[in-house]
């Protein structure tokens, strides 16, 4: 029997380089005697090479915000809230992003020695939001990539034919309250010269719960080993903040010279510097931007009013 008639699996394994040396040599020899097999192998390798190069795709900040807002409306049966002059954060990841970022502020400036307990393997996998566009894709990993898959058979099919119908009647749920505990006095200041009173107006959101603060510290695997002055950070090539801001400017059309306030750097549990938090108090189409940079890249949190 010709090989291609019975063993696509061998060709796939060969293309995927999943065979040991002996098996691979034997398969290769057999394939060389079969023109169709050789062509199949070539095609498999070509496909794999281009698929391997395919970048991850992800939602942009705006798309994610839209998704969460529409899901929220679906979930609550409410119409979109009227626009308010008071800066608020779009429901969804931005709440967490902002809360998390503000929490880092608090951790850095206020309560660092007392609150942080190091990384926690059981912490939620929710990550702070990243903006889409040119420099967010590689640093966004999907949670499911590493999860454990149970071997059991699926329970339900998941047909989506009736997905958008009678939804509101089937769900009676109310929104969970957002974090509302103020954790530090606004008049407090720190060694860096910035206080909460300086910080909070920039981010427009001052009520951070202990729980959220602890969560963001856990998620970022932070420990309070290193808090440095912003002047030093501004000069740090390691974080390359100008490059991040330049990309931000390119992506969102804001001037790269927009005022940025550096906050601090924290060490990871491996001792390496991990995070710089910088706030850009710029208004771009009524959107406040928060920039987080760290040696491997940067992220932008977009706060939509």
């Amino acid at each position, binding site marked *: 029997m010709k090989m291609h008639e019975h063993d696509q699996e061998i060709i796939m394994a060969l293309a995927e380089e999943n065979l040991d040396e002996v098996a691979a040599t034997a398969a290769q020899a057999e394939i060389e005697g079969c023109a169709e097999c050789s062509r199949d192998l070539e095609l498999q390798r070509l496909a794999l090479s281009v698929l391997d190069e395919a970048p991850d795709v992800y939602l942009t900040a705006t798309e994610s915000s839209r998704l*969460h807002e529409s899901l929220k409306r679906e979930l609550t049966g409410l119409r979109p809230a009227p626009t308010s002059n008071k800066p608020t954060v779009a429901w969804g990841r931005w709440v967490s992003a902002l809360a998390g970022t503000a929490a880092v502020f608090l951790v850095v400036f206020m309560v660092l020695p007392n609150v942080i307990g190091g990384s926690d393997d059981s912490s939620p*996998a929710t990550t702070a939001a990243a903006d889409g566009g040119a420099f967010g894709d590689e640093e966004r990993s*999907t*949670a499911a990539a590493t999860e454990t898959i149970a071997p059991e058979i699926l329970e339900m099919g998941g047909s989506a034919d009736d997905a958008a119908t009678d939804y509101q009647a089937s769900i009676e749920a109310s929104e*969970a309250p*957002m974090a509302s505990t103020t954790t530090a006095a606004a008049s407090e200041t720190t060694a860096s010269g910035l206080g909460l009173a300086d910080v909070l107006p920039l981010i427009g959101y001052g009520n951070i719960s202990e729980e959220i603060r602890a969560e963001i510290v856990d998620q970022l695997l932070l420990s309070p080993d290193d808090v440095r002055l912003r002047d030093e950070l501004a000069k740090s090539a390691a974080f390359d903040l100008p490059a991040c801001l330049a990309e931000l400017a390119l992506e969102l059309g804001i001037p790269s010279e927009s005022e940025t306030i550096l906050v601090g750097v924290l060490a990871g549990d491996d001792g390496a510097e991990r995070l710089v938090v910088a706030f850009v108090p710029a208004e771009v189409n009524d959107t406040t931007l928060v920039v987080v940079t760290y040696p491997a890249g940067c992220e932008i949190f977009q706060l939509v009013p």
Partner: protein
Amino acid sequence: MTRGSHRARITTMTNRAAEDVELLNRYLEGDVAAFDELVRAHEDRVFGICLRMMRDREAALDAVQETFITVFRKADRYEAKSAFSTWLYRVTVNTCYDQLRKAKRRRTEAMPELSDPADPHSGDELRAVELRPEIEKALQKVPIDFRSAVVLVDLQGLALEQTAQILDIPIGTVKSRVFRGRKILAESLGNLRAGSRHPRDE
């Protein structure tokens, strides 16, 4: 690649599957914020599947929304006998199938060319950044059943076993579809590249 290593590490250290079940249970008990967390944890992966399946970004976004709405509605029917993500991706794939069918009907009525590559977002900056048009175009040449297998296994990196569960087909069928899907993809790529070597000005 160093970029993103921190995020990857964070994810690795988290028991995502257990977290998903806990969040789903919290949602079923009335905690809406828990579902928001679930969405945040999975939205990019769901979007990745939808975009690869449907190509068009807006259509993919619609499918993502539809997927999560379906999960909203049917959350109480998930019994944790498989990973939440497996169930979610199954809903995702089914939603994409549905949307593609609807789109095909609409296009059949309105347009003679089903696979017209032109779309209103072809000049979208995001597309240029995120997608490889040549690959995406070739991927659209792959029949949907094969494409879904290739998307899940080769682009989303899911295991054959999980892909079999998601698509509700035997593992052998998954392998066969992946094999054939890759083959068609590669052949399409070859054709596209050959075609691109004939510029008008030569």
